[in-house]
């Protein structure tokens, strides 16, 4: 193997690794705040990619209906809960605003944007506006009712949500694969390497997103509240941070990060309704390597996963997925040995 191939594989691995890093960060966040191992993270990627590709193709993405369906469901859940708690009058305005007005407005905006040729930036924004709210809505419907359950029950629920979302993806996007046009036609020659504009976009967006997340967690009160919930749930409740609020926020960030990653990969490969799972799982491998706890370690592991995958696909393209997923076993083993033995929760 010559140096050019080596460099090429490295570059390929780093580009993919950047996306896995974003997903890994979102998974760590969701787990730390809600204890949910969020298997369906990849579905947000697929939904983001397909939504963006459809906007770019001048069509109205089915995500609009998906969003409205979930909003309606969440509204019903909140309504039933409010009636049960005999607090309908007090909560109704809030519930109507968050479950009906906001999703309705976002869906309306998307309908407005679709087909008018506003360009990638507007389509990017519209994609985030459609996919982002799905996070809190999914949390509301599937996870909040059993927020106190064991990690295991939450994990099985996450698998159920994954099945349902993949199925809904097929319903709302159909079986055909889509690929968005590149965000930039630029090609830079750096030494022997050809760097595409798309990979530059990936780097730029990843850096901006990571910086924004860092600022959010270090500087803003809400960001600190999320960290606090992750560190000590009871402590957070005792200072008045609502666990449900923290969960919604974490899921919202996860969905936005997912959609963002989706928009970034949409021009790089053809995305089908069920492609997200495999992409998400690689972010997962990174998050697991970092023990679902450390953000810097997750990012580092994500780049490692990207590079391993790039090399595996060069040397043994047939076995690429196997190599990446088998990576996780020794890591899990090592994590388990390090963990102090406690009686398993039920």
């Amino acid at each position: 193997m010559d140096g050019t191939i080596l460099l090429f594989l490295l570059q390929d691995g780093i580009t993919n690794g950047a996306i896995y890093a974003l997903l890994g960060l979102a998974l760590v966040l969701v787990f730390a705040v809600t204890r949910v191992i969020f298997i369906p993270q990849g579905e947000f990627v697929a939904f983001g990619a397909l939504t963006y590709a459809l906007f770019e193709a001048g069509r109205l993405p089915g995500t609009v209906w998906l969003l409205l369906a979930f909003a309606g469901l969440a509204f019903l859940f909140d309504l039933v809960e409010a009636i049960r708690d005999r607090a309908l009058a007090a909560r109704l305005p809030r519930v109507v605003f968050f479950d009906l007005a906001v999703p309705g407005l976002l869906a309306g905006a998307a309908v407005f944007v679709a087909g008018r040729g506003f360009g990638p930036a507007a389509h990017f924004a519209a994609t985030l506006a459609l996919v982002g709210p799905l996070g809190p809505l999914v949390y509301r419907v599937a996870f909040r009712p059993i927020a106190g359950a064991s990690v295991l029950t939450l994990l099985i629920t996450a698998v159920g949500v994954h099945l349902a979302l993949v199925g809904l993806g097929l319903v709302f996007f159909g079986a055909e694969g889509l690929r968005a046009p590149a965000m930039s036609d630029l090609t830079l020659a750096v030494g022997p390497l050809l760097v595409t504009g798309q990979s530059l976009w990936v780097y730029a967006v990843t850096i901006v997103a990571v910086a924004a997340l860092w600022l959010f967690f270090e500087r803003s009160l809400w960001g600190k509240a999320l960290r606090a919930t992750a560190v000590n749930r009871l402590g957070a409740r005792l200072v008045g941070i609502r666990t449900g609020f923290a969960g919604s926020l974490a899921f919202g960030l996860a969905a936005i990060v997912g959609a963002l990653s989706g928009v970034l990969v949409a021009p790089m490969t053809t995305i089908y309704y069920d492609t997200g799972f495999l992409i998400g799982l690689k972010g997962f491998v990174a998050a697991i390597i970092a023990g679902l706890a450390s953000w810097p370690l997750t990012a580092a592991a994500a780049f490692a996963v990207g590079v391993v995958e790039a090399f595996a696909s060069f040397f043994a393209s047939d076995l690429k997925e196997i190599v990446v997923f088998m990576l996780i076993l020794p890591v899990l083993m090592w994590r388990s040995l390090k963990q102090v033995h406690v009686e398993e929760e039920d």
Partner: protein
Amino acid sequence: MSEALLDIDGVAVAYGKVRAVRGVSLRVHAGEIVTVIGANGAGKSTLLNATMGALPIAEGCVRFAGRDLARLGVEERVGLGLCLVPERRELFSTMTVEDNLVLGGFRAPRAVARDTIAEVYDRFPRLKERRDQLAGTMSGGERQMLAMGRALMSRPKLLMLDEPSLGLAPRIVADIFRIVADLRATGVAVLLVEQNARAALAAADHGHVMELGETVASGPAAALAADDRIVESYLGFH
């Protein structure tokens, strides 16, 4: 006597089938220090956690500032001015002292929180010195101070302290109790749960002795301190 700030009336708390607290009633008035003492396992912490809403109440009723707390979660109770410093402190160990305090004022308006943090630093100069240190790296006494400081950030009307002296050296215990006594001057009422009966009764206006989930003696703190039955209920000389 004016209406009590906190009115715990005939409360029972159960873990599964086991009733850890049975038929306990007590009141705390504004600006008063009330202590609940008793041996380990008497149900003191359970009572505080149930009052805070962290455990469900099986029977009886808890009213705070004239309002029934039955349907309110922990977070809402914080908003009403009720605050608990739990036995395990529950600090945000990987965050700085200052961030812990800032989060203590999570529900307060920004400007109020800024003023309160200055007051807390005045009260605990040690915390100001260590403002950039991670909470998890502090000593036991400093952690207790941070936990109390964080609780004060929500400007509570009633502060509930669960075993503030637990595991602390005698000199630090004295500091903590002096701070508790100072709080009364600022109008904050205190409900203090302690195993260190002598120190708690010396600081309090009113005391209750719990044994096996029930109140076995109540009265002015000074009277309880002179009562031999307290020694008995601690050492079990029946």
